[in-house]
């Protein structure tokens, strides 16, 4: 249990440090942050506006008091107010976070459905036609940046073939079919790169597992190839694949920014881009904080899952 306790404490400490960094970042900037945020296009900002922003961001008070105050408010889930429309940042994040999570989940599902069977097939027919073709496609899919994939998909399927809408969002409750239709393209865009990673990992893990003694025993027992591959090889090979997938999902929490932008999908990262463009610091702060905390929590979850699946981890 001490392993678990230590791991939990580390994560809590990391979250505290992350919160402090996000809080301190605005004070580390050379010059007056309020002036910096207001001076767009090189124009000197109005002193009255600067003073107002100072009060709004709490910059007119001593740093330690600001820090204690912001941690206290964080503890009760208050992330401050947007500079654009004075609405609570936390409420906006709560509204948009599920959409981003849905997008990531859909992408992960597609990636697993594409990557794992392809990896298994490529490994069993090593160096065959399928293996070569799939490995080439995977190398390509990993090289093309996600926003290029998305933009090209829009050009091909929306603008030239008119098969799907170019982007947007409709709530599930309003029109389930349209909701899925709009989810498909961005999810597929993310899934392509992810599937390539899952494919490579599965292929390598299956090749590795096939050489093990227990697999040879399974063959010697006269089990059917199907049973050997699925129950003995794939089952063991999936451990590293799941880990890699989970870690990739963490990066995706921040990585959906580009895809949401391309498809005009109103998720959490879309909010972030709008906030950065408007230099709405409280909103940027809130989104970065929420995503980073989720990121830390996800890594913790992967570790815990690993410990459940493999008892050796707990005693390491």
């Amino acid at each position, binding site marked *: 249990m001490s392993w678990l306790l230590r791991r939990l404490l580390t994560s809590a400490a990391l979250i505290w440090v992350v919160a402090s960094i996000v809080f301190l970042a605005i004070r580390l900037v050379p010059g007056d942050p309020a002036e910096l945020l207001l001076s767009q296009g090189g124009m000197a900002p109005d002193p009255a506006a600067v003073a107002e922003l100072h009060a709004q961001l709490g910059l007119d008070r001593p740093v330690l008091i600001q820090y204690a105050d912001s941690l206290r408010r964080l503890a009760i889930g208050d992330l401050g107010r947007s500079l654009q429309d004075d609405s609570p940042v936390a409420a906006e994040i709560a509204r948009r976070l599920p959409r981003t999570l849905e997008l990531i989940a859909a992408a992960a599902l597609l990636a697993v459905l594409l990557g794992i069977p392809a990896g298994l097939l490529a490994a069993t027919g090593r160096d065959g036609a399928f293996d070569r073709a799939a490995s080439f496609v995977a190398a390509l899919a990993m090289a093309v940046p996600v926003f290029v994939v998305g933009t090209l998909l829009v050009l091909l399927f929306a603008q030239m073939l008119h098969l799907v809408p170019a982007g947007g969002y409709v709530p599930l409750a309003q029109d389930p079919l349209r909701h899925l239709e709009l989810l498909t393209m961005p999810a597929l865009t993310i899934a392509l790169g992810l599937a390539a990673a899952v494919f490579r990992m599965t292929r390598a893990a299956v090749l590795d597992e096939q050489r093990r003694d227990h697999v040879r025993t399974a063959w010697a027992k006269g089990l059917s190839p199907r049973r050997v591959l699925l129950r003995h090889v794939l089952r063991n090979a999936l451990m590293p694949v799941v880990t890699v997938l989970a870690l990739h999902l963490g990066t995706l929490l921040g990585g959906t*920014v580009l895809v949401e932008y391309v498809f005009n999908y109103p998720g959490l990262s879309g909010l972030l881009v709008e906030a950065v463009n408007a230099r709405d610091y409280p909103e940027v702060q809130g989104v970065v904080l929420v995503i980073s905390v989720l*990121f830390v929590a996800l890594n913790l979850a992967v570790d815990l899952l690993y410990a459940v699946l493999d008892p050796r981890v707990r005693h390491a």
Partner: protein
Amino acid sequence: MSQTRRNDVGLMYLARKWLGRIPILGVAAIVLLALAVPVLPLADPLHIDVAHHLAPPSLAHPLGQDEYGRDVLSRLLWGARVSLSVAAGSAALACAAGVLLGLVGGFWRGAAEFLTLRSMDIVLCFPPLLLALLVVTLLGPGAGTLIPVLAVLYLPGFVRVVYAGALAVRAQDYVEAAHAIGARPARIMLRTILPNIAGPVLVQVSLTAAAAVVLESGLSFLGLGVVPPAPSWGLMIGAARATMTQAPLLLLWPCAALSLTILAMNALCDALRDLVAGGR
């Protein structure tokens, strides 16, 4: 891994031998092209010619003209220069700082080890694009912001590689010998340990540069990386989106340039990794 297959003779062998060189040749060609851009007879990448905006390829403008009538070929090549210098700059900066921190952490252990490794864990808490966006919000976009930010993002990779290498090497007899003849710590770190872990560090440099090209283009695509009117592939893709139905080629050129560059860099990373692993 590198067992020779029986059917791997004749044409197949030749094809493989030459295909294996493509990444190195490709990356070399792209870098040379980017270096040679100022002396090439190219149109001014910033020259605006609204009368011929979105003009198709012609003799004077081999890849056509963009939404302001600027020469696309010239912008593409100048864009390579911007992308590669941001990548090279951030990789070099991250490498220098990472080697220093990793060596110090791996050599002295104790408090130095704890501080360097834990501080890297903190950087790793942030998804990369997010940390970059946080800084861009405060400091504004531009290559000057981009290079240090990317360097910080890629620092943990270097620190870990160097730290792990330093731990493995410091137990070797020749390091012990260097201690015995009274070499100073700085000399042992830089002259004895560093050359012996250069391989993995080189692989990390190539991985970092490839990742930096991707991240720079993504940020520029959002309008938060390189500032217009400077040409950058990400910016060009972002701008061409608005006119993609009238001029799809305008979108395809920078997409192809970016993807081929990353493909070549990834292949180079794989080749380097195999080389370093094989040399052990």
